[in-house]
């Protein structure tokens, strides 16, 4: 038997395991995007069972990878002064947001047209939009870019940090993809070309739906929109939306360095961005604003 064990040990040295993916940065990104965890220290040592450490931790109850949005309203507290303090905080927060929006609007107005990029919009959590004089020359169309790993909706749901929204009344989706590279993870759905949704040369499909947790991935995705493309902010049933019409650049900034790189971008045409709670939905395809808006109105869980 010892000889067999020796042979197995020698064999191990020559085994060709699949390459280990670099997980540290990805895990770190997800943790930073999530709420800080509570790690209550045990005050009394747990009685040791067996030789290995507690199995309780080995079978943790399934939880969303990233918790939902941070509590924005103060917790109810005892005492007469507390609610007033909370209300004051709310008012203060509102003022800060208003001031930020005014400053942004002022900046857009004040920056000369020749300036390289102007921050156009602050309204979406998951995506920023910059107005640029022109697109980078080496920008390319990349259908199926960054879709993620093929999966099913049922398998994707528990792995997302948000409840996905699905358009109704369409044929499909014919592809469901989970992208682990986005903080909080993102869901991509592809719909085949169908009446009203012709194939787009930028996505290769009739409709591409991209969803992410805007709270977990603030500013992860972005758009560079040249002057000749249109940006329109409007509301869909009281929810904030942005319509971008015309050729623009869709990109992401890795959370490790937050810098733009042409390799992390692709050309895109018309797209509608809708913020629904913590979910930012992006609908992209060769369609007009009315079609995109009609699809957005059907989004549901």
């Amino acid at each position, binding site marked *: *038997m010892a000889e067999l064990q020796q042979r197995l040990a020698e064999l191990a040295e020559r*085994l060709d395991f*699949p390459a*280990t993916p670099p997980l540290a*940065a990805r895990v770190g990104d997800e943790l930073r995007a999530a709420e800080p965890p509570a790690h209550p220290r045990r005050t009394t040592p747990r009685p040791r069972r067996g030789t*290995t450490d507690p199995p309780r*931790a080995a*079978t*943790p109850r399934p939880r969303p*990878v990233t918790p939902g949005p941070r509590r924005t309203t103060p917790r109810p507290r005892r005492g007469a002064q507390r609610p007033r303090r909370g209300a004051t905080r709310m008012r203060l927060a509102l003022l800060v947001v208003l001031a930020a929006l005014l400053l942004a609007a002022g900046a857009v107005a004040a920056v000369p047209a020749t300036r390289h990029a102007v921050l156009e919009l602050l309204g979406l959590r998951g995506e920023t939009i910059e107005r640029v004089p022109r697109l980078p020359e080496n920008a390319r169309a990349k259908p199926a870019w960054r879709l993620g790993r093929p999966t099913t909706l049922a398998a994707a749901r528990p792995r997302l940090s948000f409840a996905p929204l699905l358009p109704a009344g369409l044929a499909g989706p014919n592809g469901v993809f989970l992208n682990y590279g986005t903080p909080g993870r993102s869901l991509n759905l592809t719909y085949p070309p169908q009446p009203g949704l012709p194939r787009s040369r930028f996505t290769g499909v009739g409709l591409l739906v991209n969803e992410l947790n805007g709270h977990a991935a603030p500013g992860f995705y972005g758009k560079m929109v040249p002057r000749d493309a249109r940006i329109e902010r409007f509301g869909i049933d009281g929810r904030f939306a942005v319509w971008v019409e015309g050729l623009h650049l869709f990109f992401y900034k890795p959370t490790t360095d937050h810098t733009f790189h042409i390799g992390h971008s692709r050309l895109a045409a018309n797209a509608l961005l809708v913020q629904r709670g913590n979910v930012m939905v992006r609908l992209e395809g060769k369609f007009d604003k009315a079609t995109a808006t009609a699809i957005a109105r059907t989004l549901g869980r």
Partner: protein
Amino acid sequence: MAGETIAEESLLTRAREGDVRAYEELVERHQETAFRVAWLITRSSADAEEAVQDAFLKAYRALGRFRAGAPFRPWLLRIVANEARNRRVAVVRRERLALRLHEERRPAVAGAAEAEALAAAEREALLAAAARLDERDRLVIGARFFLGLSEAETAATLGVRRGTVKSRLSRALGRLRKEIERDG
């Protein structure tokens, strides 16, 4: 080794206090073994990758329940193995045990020395025989020999007691020997 343990304990303490960078370092240290354990169980790189990523996230959130001073790797590997088992689906969809020998170390039989060629053929036969074992045998052999896990780590990975690892390994080796003899 003692220095490494101290460094790991320090990383664990910092990670428990919410230092994500310290935890990233722990991930860096253990990701290869964790991935290989998950791969042995799922036999799919994609599933193993998902399982390990989720396991690291869950382990971080469970650090408060981790007993200070206890070895981290067996505790982590148990979480990894549980995640990997959750992802294991119908065997029919899976590739055969796809462990291979390093391509560059395979001798070109025609030109190699006879002894070396024979040794290479024996290794191939041994690997093939191991691949034919049932999952229970394959996992215990894989954990102990291919991944070099300790008995405690193997026990945590398989979710059994240390004594069970010993007896299971002994039986698995016996069956492996029979497989080799059958090959003749």
